[in-house]
């Protein structure tokens, strides 16, 4: 069995005239949770989109050992689920309807949702604690509740690989903790999770980190290793410090020692 879930070789991408990704080579392991981190504008979302095959790019991307271009779109959708950042959503659909949309790759053209679809949607909605208000329409929900519904939609696909861009947006700490549990359960089941997070504290719970800056990968390695920590600190201009705290890794902002710092000439 192939140990690599998604692989990129010489991946470059542009948005308009700007070159966002420069010649990226990357291998994301299977049944692991990998987090992509980096400062604003590093190209993390663009990388994730390119890996999901949603962005035109040069270079090769392979999913589960097969080049992405060779996958028929339906099968690819069944194996790879995507949760985007700042997703719009129609206010009129109910929570249940939105979650059911995640089953589209599995549904035959004209058939109504099957029992398997119903079961998958229920599992997904229960996992995000959204089952109780499945009849409410999206427009009636708060930001955090809406995010959980969109997450449930991505979970309902029950894909092998899950790509999530800023999945914790609007989520309060208890639900952020829930999300952590969810991801770890998925990984235990053998699924691959790749997420872009700007919450470094959450990112440090992952199995592996991919550190990005200015469209390039500066480091890829296990979260527990010191080299990864150093790379992380370096990419944020040493404004953070990684420490161990009660068995977890945390990143604390490094405050300047005094408010009046000698000003270096630029």
């Amino acid at each position, binding site marked *: 069995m192939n140990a690599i879930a998604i692989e990129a070789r010489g991946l470059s991408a542009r948005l308009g005239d700007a070159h966002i990704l420069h010649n990226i080579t990357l291998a994301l392991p299977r049944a692991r949770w990998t987090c992509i981190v980096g400062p604003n504008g590093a190209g993390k979302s663009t990388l994730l*989109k390119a890996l*999901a*095959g*949603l962005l035109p790019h040069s270079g090769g991307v392979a999913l589960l050992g097969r080049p992405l271009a060779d996958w028929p*779109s*339906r*099968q*690819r*959708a*069944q194996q*790879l*689920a*995507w*949760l*985007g950042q700042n*997703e*719009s*959503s*129609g*206010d*009129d*659909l*109910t929570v*249940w*309807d*939105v979650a059911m*949309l*995640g089953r*589209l*790759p599995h*549904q035959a*053209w*004209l058939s109504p949702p099957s029992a398997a679809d119903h079961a998958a949607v229920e599992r997904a909605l229960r996992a995000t604690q959204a089952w109780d208000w499945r*009849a409410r*329409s999206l*427009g*009636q929900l708060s930001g955090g509740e809406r995010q959980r519904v*969109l997450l449930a*939609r991505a979970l309902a*696909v029950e894909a092998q690989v899950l790509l999530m861009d800023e999945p914790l947006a609007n989520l309060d700490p208890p639900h952020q903790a829930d999300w952590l549990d969810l991801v770890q359960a998925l990984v235990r089941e053998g699924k691959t999770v790749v997420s872009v997070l700007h919450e470094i504290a959450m990112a440090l719970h992952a199995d592996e980190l991919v550190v990005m800056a200015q469209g390039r990968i500066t480091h890829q390695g296990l979260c527990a290793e010191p080299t990864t920590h150093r790379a992380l600190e370096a990419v944020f201009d040493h404004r953070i410090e990684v420490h161990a705290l009660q068995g977890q890794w945390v990143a604390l902002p490094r405050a300047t020692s005094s408010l009046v710092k000698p000003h270096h000439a630029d």
Partner: protein
Amino acid sequence: MNARRASWLVVGLLLTALALAALGVCVGSAGFENLIGPLLNPEADPADTAMAQQIVWEIRLPRTLGAWGAGALLGLAGAVAQGLFRNPLADPFLLGSASGASLGVALALAAMGGGAGMLGAGMMNSGVAVSVFSSSVWVRLGLTGAAFGGAVLAVLLTLLLSRGVQHTLRLLLAGVVVGVVLGAMTHLVLLFSPESLQAMQAFMLGSTSFVGWTACVLMVAVWALCALAAWLLARVLDGLSLGDATARSLGLPLGPMRAALVAVLALATGTAVAQTGLIAFVGLAAPHLVRSMVKTTSARLMLLASCMGGALLMAADTLARWLIAPQELPVGVLTAVLGGGYLLWLMQRNTRVSRGAGL
């Protein structure tokens, strides 16, 4: 849950349509007259029955059912447009089809007026009688064909300008541009042929005056076809409501499906406009009215919006024929009053209720 509510709404709307059909059959050039009675008791008064039958079967029934057909087409097109552009203000005429149809009709009116001059007064007895009763394609095609052709060509022009259906914003902008340019050309044509102004106005405000059985059956048949296509494509509309990227990640072939939806939009709008002229507001209001009553996925929304549009236009048409009989009000005015009035009431109610759904 919502599915059951939606089913009830469909039944409700169809029953309303049936009631309106019965009413529509009784309303004509003499205002309201009970013709159902003579029709159901043929032996009571044969002369009465014969007249009632002719009026009802040949004139009023096709008009009333045609109003439903046109309303259903416009309601469906409105729902498709709003889903495709993810814009609650979208209406079926967004891609320039209204201006295209207007230009077609203006050109046809100008040609008919000018071209006839060549026939000359001497041909009044023989030549012109030929043109009235000839079944030549061009005469038959006339205004109806001109309107349909204009609408479809305008949409094609929009597609050409936006270079495909990939970017909805570009499609929208191209539609606006085409609409404005063709509208200006229509004004130009009318400037040089001012005698067509009155006929043009009748077209612009819409009417079911000349809808016979052929037109009625045509509209209902095209609606059935478009409704089927829209139902098959409904999942893409639902997927699109989550954004382009997510829709693509779900494996939906966006390009071909968008193109198919634009085709449905053009066909439905063109057919309705060709037979009944430009009736504003039905396409815009019908989906909103449905959404105010039940929240549902696109597939059911297509059917519901059709039924709602049909009922709305039937009601407006009956009123248009009734209020100042034997004169007729333009149907477009009444659809705006009915549909707009209800929407205003809804909005008023929503602002009182905290954070209402829908609008």
